[in-house]
């Protein structure tokens, strides 16, 4: 069930850097990688394609780069038919997951490559190329490493060279395939902010593929969530986090607790807890989702889900509380540093989800 986003009126198809993807399908042999995906990116937007592996996000990126030809659909960039352009004329800056630096060239040669392969009439002079390379090296803070070979660089440095190389051709669109995938957590966080700054300064439209929901929510203007080759939801990080379109998205965007329940009229019932049902809740058998840190605790004679505390552990700023609810063990979280009153191992209490989300139960599930 592809949930194609409606073209929003504030997207101007004529603005030079707006991207419009409509009805893209692509299969490899019998394996469908993309199924009727439509979405838009605004002028100079930072768009994240988020999904688990096999969701088709990288395939979509390669379609945009021109490295894969879709079976059906259309891509317009600044109003221009993008699919009819060969790769080399699209002027997209692509950063590959493993950087794909030219291993037999120095860092400076890597960055200069895109300028040097231009047609003679459009090719900058040697001194112009050198200046540009120097500018880019300082932009990515690698001024002294121009003469090194890629094999002599660290992962983070390689990634920045790959970015500089992609920026050298003054791309209209930046495509990043899991740009932080091969880096360790520390470097990752540092580069994230830096990349966002770079995007803002470069004035390009950026499409960025990741399987890390935290990264997508932190960096992007909008997030497109893909699953099994279909677009499930498109929205700002806040929209998708606050209002996940379906259980998959809810689950994918963060830790989730789920319990079966029923909605009857305006009332939601989960086990012996009854509450006002959320506005758009479906009727009948439902699945109730809540985030493990969005709960409040009440004494055993209060209102909420009946639970029994099994273990309590303070972990840095948070307190983890293992609770048995409806015969299932849940790992709940409270923001510490102190343990909420009335919560201790062996005690019975009531747990009230503060913002439960309700989805129709899958038949047979």
């Amino acid at each position, binding site marked *: 069930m592809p949930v194609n986003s409606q073209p929003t009126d504030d997207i101007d198809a004529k603005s030079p850097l707006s991207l419009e993807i409509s009805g893209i399908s692509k299969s490899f042999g019998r394996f469908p990688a993309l199924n009727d995906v439509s979405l838009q990116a605004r002028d100079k937007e930072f768009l994240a394609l988020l999904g688990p592996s096999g969701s088709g996000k990288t395939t979509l990126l390669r379609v945009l*780069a021109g490295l894969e030809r879709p079976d059906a659909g259309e891509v317009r960039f600044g109003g221009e038919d993008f699919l009819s352009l060969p790769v*080399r*004329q699209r002027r997209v800056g692509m950063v590959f997951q493993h950087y794909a630096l*030219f291993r037999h060239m120095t860092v400076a040669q890597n960055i200069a*490559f*895109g300028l040097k392969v231009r047609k003679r009439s459009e090719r900058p002079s040697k001194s112009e190329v050198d200046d540009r390379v120097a500018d880019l090296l300082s932009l990515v803070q690698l001024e002294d490493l121009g003469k090194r070979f*890629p*094999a002599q660089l660290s992962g983070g440095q390689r990634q920045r060279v790959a970015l500089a*190389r992609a920026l050298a051709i003054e791309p209209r669109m930046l495509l990043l395939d899991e740009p932080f995938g091969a880096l360790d957590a520390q470097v990752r966080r540092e580069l994230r902010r830096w990349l966002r700054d770079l995007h803002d300064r470069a004035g390009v439209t950026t499409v960025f593929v990741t399987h890390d929901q935290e990264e997508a929510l932190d960096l992007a203007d909008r997030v497109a969530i893909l699953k099994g080759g279909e677009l499930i939801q498109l929205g700002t990080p806040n929209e998708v986090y606050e209002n996940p379109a379906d259980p998959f998205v809810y689950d994918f965007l963060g830790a989730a607790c789920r319990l079966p329940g029923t909605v009857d009229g305006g009332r939601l019932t989960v086990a012996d807890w009854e509450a006002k049902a959320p506005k758009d809740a479906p009727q009948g058998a439902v699945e109730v989702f809540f985030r493990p840190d969005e709960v409040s605790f009440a004494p055993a004679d209060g209102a909420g889900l009946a639970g029994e505390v099994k273990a309590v552990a303070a972990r840095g700023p948070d307190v983890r509380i293992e609770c048995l609810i409806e015969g299932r063990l849940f790992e709940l979280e409270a923001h510490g540093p102190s343990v909420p009153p009335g919560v201790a191992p062996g005690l019975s209490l009531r747990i009230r989800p503060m913002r439960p989300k309700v989805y129709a139960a899958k038949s047979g599930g």
Partner: protein
Amino acid sequence: MTVEARPISRTRLPGFAPLLVLASAIVMAVLVLMPLFVVFGDAFSKGFGKYLASIRDPDAVAAVKLTLLVAAIAVPLNAMFGIAAAWCIAKFEFRGKSALLTLIDLPFSMSPVVSGLVWVLLFGAQGWFGTWLIDHDIKIIFATTGLVLATILVTFPFVARELIPLMQDQGSDEEAAALTLGASGFTTFWKITLPNIRWALLYGVLLCNARAMGEFGAVSVVSGHIRGLTTTLPLHVEVLYNDYDFVGAFAAASLLASLGLITLVLKTTLEWRHAGELAANRRH
């Protein structure tokens, strides 16, 4: 598995190892070094003058020239074919890929005599195209063309086999990157693909060349042994040996052996000088 654990695997050899090393050294000496000494020893057995005369013999000179000519045609063709095949297999997915891989290996598993016989069956006087070729006065069998064809078939896999694993390992990301940066297909091949495989290519060409010059079986079938015309160096050795001209036979053999030694030196130099670079490529 930590990195520090690695040097520990280079422990001292156990007590009986020197014995094994000695044994293999003896075997090598008997099987490899002794024949080499015999070849050069017999070649010079009647003095240096006689050796020089054997080498300067018009038939010997013709054989050397023919050998070089055949290699000069067969090796570049196989290098081109090898690059093309490795490129297809390593960078693209297509139907029948594994069949092509198997086919490339066929000359290795087939007796060279068969590789020669194929051409006789096709182009010989009694072959499929025999009458047509005779009518049009085209000679393939018992001529240089046949020798080249037989050599190409036998040395078919050398370059491709050397390149395929390397190119598969390198993947096609760098080429894709070059394309997105605006390079044409030709520029991408010339500036990215070729430099990345240059040492492996040279290595493959070297092996291919050694085999092309030394090939006996396949060439023997199509040659017809016409002295001074269709005898390559290995065939020349056989002809002289059958004539009881031992000095001549060993003199010619010493030339072949020298070719082999030169190849070995080049190959070792290549491995020694570019081992790091190749290893870095594979780790990348």
